[in-house]
């Protein structure tokens, strides 16, 4: 306040505003140079998104295709062979026909096949009598895939028997389709492509990592090297330091955002049904939150080794496991759900999934954007408090 000399209050605030602007600009310039000259920042801002885009677009998938399945034909009679042929034609299986159970069990133990379909010797006879059974054994280790495989086998066997019924070869056979048939509809993702929800989810990982990792070290580094104390004896204020640290990385994070959205839309043809503006606004808010968390960690622990561990712990795994991007939040126990409410990624995932696949659903957008905005504001204040306290 000592700068306030004889000049009136308006003149004073104008000069101090101009000085402040100059100080922030200088800080931003310094930080930007440091960022651009360090190849690791660019690697995180540009290369990491590219790697993740490729992984999510081409690699990761929860869809099960080409499942190695052992089919045990105890007696290769007409009907049994017919059924195994039907499975062979399905895109979901890569069947391996065997004559006995023992070698099939060995294959399952060694992980060479994911399941065994046992068509017993009396299959044809009992089918004619109307009470045939086939036995399916799945490797339950991967429960999710196992359940999908069970569904596929049921479907394939069901359509085989329905087709026989239609051809009039069935006799009393009514198939496993019952009196009531379920017609399933998958809204927003009719073709059931897991890519459609994995690729938008990629944005959560990219933005969380860029935001959290880039800033986690910057303040701790200055503390360790003692350069922050040098900065404190200049007229720079703590919020100006934070602003100078945030803006360059915010710019770099936006590069990652644009790369991810462009590739989602044009490379992987994931529909973007909502407005690009709402998506950008939500992403900027989320980036701000992620950057502030990194800065907060960094100024609070003042130690790069601890800061790096904390940043790794609070960014990657929570965003992957607790955001609702892979696992359904509603099925988690209440205590864990409570933890997810503290996690900004949760709100961002809700926004992303709706904006990409459903469109501008305001009942989803408004509350989630509000929470993110509140978090950004609270974190900014918190970061200022932590930095200022250390000034004294």
């Amino acid at each position, binding site marked *: 306040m000592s700068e306030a000399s004889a000049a009136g209050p308006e003149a004073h605030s104008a000069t101090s505003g101009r000085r402040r602007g100059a100080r922030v600009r200088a800080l931003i310039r310094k930080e930007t140079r440091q960022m651009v000259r360090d190849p*690791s920042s660019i*690697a*995180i801002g540009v*290369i990491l998104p590219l*790697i993740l885009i490729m992984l999510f677009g*081409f*690699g*990761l998938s*929860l869809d099960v295709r*080409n499942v190695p399945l052992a089919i045990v034909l105890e007696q290769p009679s007409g009907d049994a062979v017919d059924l195994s042929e039907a499975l062979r034609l399905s895109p979901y299986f890569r069947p391996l026909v065997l004559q006995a159970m023992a070698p099939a069990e060995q294959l*399952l133990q060694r*992980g060479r096949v*994911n399941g065994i379909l046992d068509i017993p010797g009396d299959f044809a006879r009992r*089918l004619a009598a109307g*009470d*045939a*059974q*086939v036995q399916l*054994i799945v*490797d*339950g*280790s991967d*429960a999710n*895939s*196992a*359940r*999908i495989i069970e569904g596929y086998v049921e479907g394939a066997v069901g359509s085989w*028997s329905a087709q026989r019924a239609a051809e009039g070869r069935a006799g*009393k056979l009514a198939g*496993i389709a*019952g*009196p*009531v048939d*379920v*017609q*399933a*509809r998958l*809204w927003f*993702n009719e073709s059931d492509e897991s890519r459609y*929800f994995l690729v938008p989810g990629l944005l959560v*990982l990219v933005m969380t990592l860029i935001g959290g990792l880039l800033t986690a070290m*910057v303040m701790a*580094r200055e503390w360790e090297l003692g350069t922050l104390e040098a900065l404190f004896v200049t007229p720079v204020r703590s919020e100006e330091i934070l602003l100078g640290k945030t803006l360059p990385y915010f710019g770099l994070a936006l590069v990652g955002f644009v790369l991810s959205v462009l590739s989602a839309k044009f490379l992987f043809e994931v529909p973007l049904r909502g407005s690009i503006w709402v998506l950008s606004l939500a992403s900027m808010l989320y980036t701000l939150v992620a950057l502030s968390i990194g800065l907060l960690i960094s100024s609070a622990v003042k130690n*790069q*080794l601890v800061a*790096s*561990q904390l940043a*790794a*712990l609070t960014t990657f*795994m929570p965003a*992957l496991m607790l955001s609702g991007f892979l696992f359904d939040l*509603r*099925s*988690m126990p209440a*205590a*864990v759900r409570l933890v997810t409410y503290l996690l900004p990624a949760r709100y961002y995932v809700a926004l992303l999934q*709706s904006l990409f696949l*459903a469109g501008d*659903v305001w*009942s989803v957008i408004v509350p989630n954007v509000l929470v993110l905005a509140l978090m950004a504001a609270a974190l900014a204040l918190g970061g200022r408090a932590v930095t200022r306290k250390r000034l004294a």
Partner: protein
Amino acid sequence: MLASLLRILALTRKELLAVLKDRRARLSLLIPPMVQALIFGYAATYDLNRVPYALLDLDHSAASRELVSGLDGSGVFERVADLPRASAVPDTIDSRRALLVVRIDQDFERHLLAGQPADVQAIADGRNSNTAGTALGYVSSIVQQFNTQWRADHGMPAAAMQVVERAWYNPNLETRWYMIPGMIGTLTLIQTMMLTVMSVAREREQGTFDQLLVTPFRPHEIMAGKAVPSMIIGTIQASGVLVVGQLWFRIPFAGSYFVLYPGLLLFLLAAVGMGLLLSAVAGTMQQAMLYSMLFIMPFSLLSGFTTPLASMPDALQEFTLINPLRYAIDIARRVYLEGAGFGVLAHDLWPLALMALVTLSAAAWVFRYRPQ
């Protein structure tokens, strides 16, 4: 030889002290794996136990009520709304109020009694198509039960063909059984690899690495002194996750610790070797962290931890061959759930050994010749 061992021991002790003397560092290395295992153990499940659904029953018949009571009594489906008309369906799904709308049309009972096929429509929110698919699967198995019951009650012959299902190793098909053993490697990799890279980078940043080089320590001794502490911490972390899985989640341990631990040590050796190699390119701690994340992320995502390896395209499956975590997860799952021995695990163990050999020798070379 003995003198060399003693020097490595001294370095290990110094390194452990340097890392663990800070209380926050101690806490951030020893506590999080167990806490994460606890939280993620509950969170990481593809099973659904609460599916909010809305009912659109246009039939209001005894038959439709019977079907609905099957859904309500399943313990999985939670009815959040009774929709009066079809036009209310889109909003219910869009706003995420319900994951699923079950629609029963007007002539449901009439068709059923007349012996004609009757349809039930299940509309699911496909924004997460995996969750939606699982929920739809639950609906069809409940309808299947209804069918069996209906056939029995109305003197119809039982279905002519049945698929009898059985799951090995995990009879109730619980995803948690699959996830927790996978976490033993995943949670450990993230912190251990980063710790290794960071601890070398710290010496470089503070200039103490040069001091180490002028001591009587040989480069490979310095390297061992950096590797052993990380492996000790990694082993403790892995054990923490194992304890949570067995004592808290009570997932039965089918195998032998004498198989699991050698496998884990080999994995840690490979991971730490990669970390040491990586530390050669990192001049500052900031770079050390960012570069290690650049490897940790793809390693974790391409490990089969959350999505099956088999459904990746061939090119990527080949890339996963250089991913130590892929082998660690397979070892942990097979030993934990299936009780596998060394024989079955050979195809996991030798790639890890090879990776450890290659990365550690390369790192030793770099430690010696890296231009400062």
